[in-house]
């Protein structure tokens, strides 16, 4: 536990927060970079993945594509993809630009599957009868999507974003390890200097950031849930699968646990 105490002392040491210090300090600059990379890449990924997921979820076309695509993307080693992209771009760009652009592309690619799957799974989870009655009452397909499907599936859509954001935060750690900014630089320089306080301090900062952002998303998910939807959806899913009503959980439901 001594190690943790001195790592936390390292984090709290004002000397590590002085503006204009030599990289990887000050801590707040690395933190800002980390958040900026995360925000920009998730935003781009969402602009691509959300409409696609809504289309697949609304029409039901391409379900198999989502499942195999998300599976295949999982199998890609992040570190390799990151290096491969930056090297390929390095043939036509200055290395610092190539590192930045390559990393951004890698981050966007890695965030897309979660967001896509969340949007698709969200729309799929909406009760068919609700959609049918929306259609019967004269709503256009666009109205059904924006006024019925998306609001009802918001917690799952946000769950996909949550997973995407956390994956990007973790990948930025590795990216910063290979030349970009971000909190990973602190660990990298710690390993270089053989300074375990710095390694552990950096690791604690990143972990705290990930847990904090995960917590924020958990709260948003809870706030965006439509009251009463969960239970009807479950019974409907169960009857579709011809299974007897089980205990409080079913296979298809928990994208994010409700209890957390």
């Amino acid at each position, binding site marked *: 536990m001594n190690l943790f105490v001195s790592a936390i002392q390292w984090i709290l040491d004002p000397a590590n927060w002085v503006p204009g210090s030599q990289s990887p300090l000050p801590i707040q600059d690395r933190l800002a970079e980390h958040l900026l990379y995360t925000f920009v890449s998730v935003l781009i990924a969402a602009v691509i993945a959300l409409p696609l997921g809504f289309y697949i979820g609304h029409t039901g076309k391409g379900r198999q594509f989502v*499942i195999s695509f*998300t*599976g295949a993307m*999982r*199998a*890609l*080693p*992040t*570190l*390799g*993809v990151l*290096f*491969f992209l*930056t*090297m*390929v771009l390095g043939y036509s760009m200055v290395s610092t630009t190539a590192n930045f652009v390559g990393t951004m592309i890698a981050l966007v690619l*890695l965030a897309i*599957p*979660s967001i896509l*799957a969340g949007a698709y*799974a969200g729309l799929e989870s909406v009760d068919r009868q609700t959609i049918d009655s929306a259609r019967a009452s004269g709503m256009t397909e666009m109205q059904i999507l924006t006024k019925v499907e998306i609001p009802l599936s918001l917690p799952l859509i946000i*769950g*996909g974003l949550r*997973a*995407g954001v*956390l*994956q990007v*935060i*973790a990948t930025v*750690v*590795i990216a910063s*390890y*290979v030349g970009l900014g971000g909190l990973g630089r602190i*660990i990298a320089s710690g*390993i270089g200097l053989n300074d*375990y306080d710095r390694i*552990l301090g*950096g*690791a*604690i900062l*990143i*972990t705290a950031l*990930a*847990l904090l952002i*995960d917590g924020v998303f958990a709260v948003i998910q809870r706030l965006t849930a439509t009251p009463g939807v969960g239970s009807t959806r479950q019974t409907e899913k169960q009857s579709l*699968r011809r*299974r*007897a009503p*089980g*205990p*409080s*959980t*079913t*296979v*298809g439901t*928990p994208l*994010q*646990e409700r*209890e*957390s």
Partner: protein
Amino acid sequence: MNWFLSNWELVLELTLNHIRLSIIPIIIGFVIAVPLGRLAITGRTARGIIITSTSLLYTIPSLPLFVILPAILGTKVLSDINLIVALSIYAVAIMVRAASDSFASVSPDVKQASLAMGYSRWQQFWKVEFPLAGPVLLAGMRVVSVSTIALVSVGVLIGSENLGYLFTNGKQRGILEEVGTGIIASLLIALVFDLILVLLGRILLPWSRSDKKSQSASAALQLQIKAADAA
């Protein structure tokens, strides 16, 4: 192809080590997660504690976890044990969800019928619940296997010898083919492991082939969404 042809021995050695480093966490994950997952469906409190704590562990990014573990375990920073423990933690985190979902999917009528037939709780678990939970457990294992194999390569940053070495070495020396070889080899291992798991499922769970297919596919999808955040 030139680089690969003159370095295939290195690739083979790293691949074997990569496989070794992946298999251990996958198996540990299964062994720990199944009882935890069964425990999680015994009540809301148990489920809350188990699922919340494992998903919190899962939120920790991989590289920080690799370097935090030596401080907790007292191991050396460059030891492979840190990598194996970290990957086992992630495997458990994914697998606990799958296991608790799978046990929850077993019909209570079937469980009660087995009790009525005179099965003990122990027999009921092994002869009824565990086999019926099989298809969803398998879907979980497939996600665990794929993500573990992909994650092992990050271990190279803390000195582990695996296919990740081809990434760092290839980048340093500017050999794109080396990095590409590492990616392909890693994908191939993931593919072979997946095929083995599917085959195991066919042999051990012959009844599940048609009926539960779509069910385990969507279970896998849900898990992947959750699984995405470890990197």
